[in-house]
């Protein structure tokens, strides 16, 4: 009963993502009517101008928002299960800023190695996650407070490094500013092609992670009783979460709150079984970031607000609301 209801909810959300994506392609300085979009997407070109707008500008940006949103949300959902902590999200735990420091180091200090950015982001995220684990791990597991404190420490440390790099390499900074704010502007097809393969690998791994995630949520003792190597699962799932978050950082910089609030929204809608929670987080994450980005580029047009800033403005109050409802 619950299962079939959840299946419907997840399917409807995915359908909503497609609808929103088509609407978002139409919005912008040049409005493209929806029939024209559909014609361009599914048939031969309607007009050359529309083709350029849709395929070179809007579609890559929309797809990028969907992919990144999905990645961060899945990462948050997995971290929340692995750390047994509703506050665990790549941003608050410092994974995002660890990855960001690594990316910024390459961008500013060694711009000739730009192709290593995704790998660097991953390594930076892993280092940050390891620091959080070693600081927050008490005898009886991870406590919510210590994770947040460890996250504050890692974020502060990374903030310091970012500040230092910005001053030392201020001449090269303009190229990095948009990236630092989590902007999807002018990313184009090459960024899309950079993150897509990593993301697909991450999504496939996530499908296999569903059962393990559910088992680990029963508690360490029960999980090991069911023949699972709890610490190994925890390490592998953390690596997966960092991997997904790091691909996003590498592509568009720091976007907060998606990983925190989306899994909560998903849990509210489909419950805590990861068979539904994970795909639901994926769809909702895609939807939320698409709305944030599309809103950011249309509300104050011709100016643009980076999606990262829109998310902070929406996410902050939502976070306070969660605290008020004492979800943690």
């Amino acid at each position: 009963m619950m299962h079939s209801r959840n299946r419907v909810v997840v399917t409807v959300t995915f359908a909503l993502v497609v609808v929103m994506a088509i609407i978002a392609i139409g919005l912008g300085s040049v409005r493209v009517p929806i029939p024209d979009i559909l014609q361009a997407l599914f048939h031969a070109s309607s007009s050359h101008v529309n083709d350029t707008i849709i395929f070179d500008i809007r579609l890559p940006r929309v797809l990028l928002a969907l992919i990144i949103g999905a990645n961060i949300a899945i990462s948050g959902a997995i971290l929340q299960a692995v750390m047994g902590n509703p506050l665990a999200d790549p941003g608050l735990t410092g994974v995002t800023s660890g990855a960001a420091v690594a990316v910024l180091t390459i961008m500013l200090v060694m711009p000739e190695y730009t192709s290593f950015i995704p790998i660097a982001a991953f390594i930076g995220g892993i280092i940050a996650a390891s620091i959080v684990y070693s600081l927050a791990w008490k005898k009886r597991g991870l406590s919510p407070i210590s994770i947040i404190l460890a996250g504050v420490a890692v974020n502060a440390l990374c903030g310091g490094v970012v500040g230092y790099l910005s001053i030392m390499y201020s001449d090269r900074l303009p190229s990095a500013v948009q990236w630092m704010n989590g902007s999807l502007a002018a990313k184009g097809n090459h960024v899309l092609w950079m993150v897509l393969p990593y993301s697909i690998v991450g999504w496939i791994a996530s499908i296999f992670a569903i059962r393990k995630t559910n088992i680990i949520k029963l508690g360490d003792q029960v999980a090991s009783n069911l023949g699972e190597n709890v610490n190994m699962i925890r390490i592998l799932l953390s690596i997966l979460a960092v991997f997904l978050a790091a691909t996003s950082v590498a592509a568009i910089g720091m976007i907060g709150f998606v990983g925190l609030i989306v899994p909560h929204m998903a849990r509210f809608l489909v419950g805590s079984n990861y068979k539904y929670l994970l795909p639901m987080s994926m769809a909702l994450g895609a939807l939320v970031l698409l709305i944030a980005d599309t809103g950011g580029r249309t509300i104050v047009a011709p100016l643009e607000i980076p999606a990262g800033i829109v998310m902070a403005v929406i996410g902050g109050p939502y976070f306070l609301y969660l605290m008020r409802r004492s979800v943690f």
Partner: protein
Amino acid sequence: MLTVDSISIQYEKKTVIQDFSFSVQEGEIVSIIGPNGSGKSTILKAISRQLAPSKGDIKLQGVNISKLGRKETARQMCMLSQRNTAPEDMTVYDLVSYGRYPHKRWFEKLAEKDEKIIEWALEKTNMTQFKEKRIAMLSGGESQRAWIAMALSQQPKILLLDEPTTYLDISHQHEVLELVQELNREMNMTVIMVLHDLNQASYYSNRIVVVQNGKKQSCGTPEQVMTTDMVKNVYRMNCEINCNCNDKKPRIHLLNSTKVRGGISVDKAN
């Protein structure tokens, strides 16, 4: 079936269990009793491989358990702790179905055979009527039964129970222990459990192991173990013991503490 051969267990360099041995035959119910902090649960944790003994071996049907695969161990033994937490919105059926995972490879789905076993486990524990209910909505006794159903669907040969009755009122305590006894009798399931209540241990066990300060104080049938001297030595309580008229199991009536005010033991010589 299971032999614990002179194991020692250390927690951060402190020896909690020292040179402890006992063995369990197939189809037995063995209770481990002892005061708080004596190391009862630690022994159960070592048997269920959550702690590795620093010395000695634990053998399951002649094979050292540290050499068994994790899933293999899970198919042989299942441990339930005194309090388990499931995600709030998990249904009883979903919980019980997790018991099948040690029997599945990581990509395998539940087959019809697994579903039959799940239904059977629900029926055995009298939980069929609750299968669509959420765990969080159940009473303490019902939720303990749901966890036992999960353990059953794992189809272990040995069931390890760590204080299965601690958080339950007396009628639910009785219900859970009756269920354990029924499983033992009908399916010849071997049960090793840690209990606090001496009378329950005496009534439901074939044999009792008494643990004191990490060492085995005594071991034997309830009649052999339950003596006024044992209770006085281990629990510092005076008691009377008589026999249950029906089954001749000893019944303990605790009288008073042997300690006088100020904590000085009257019978220090013991």
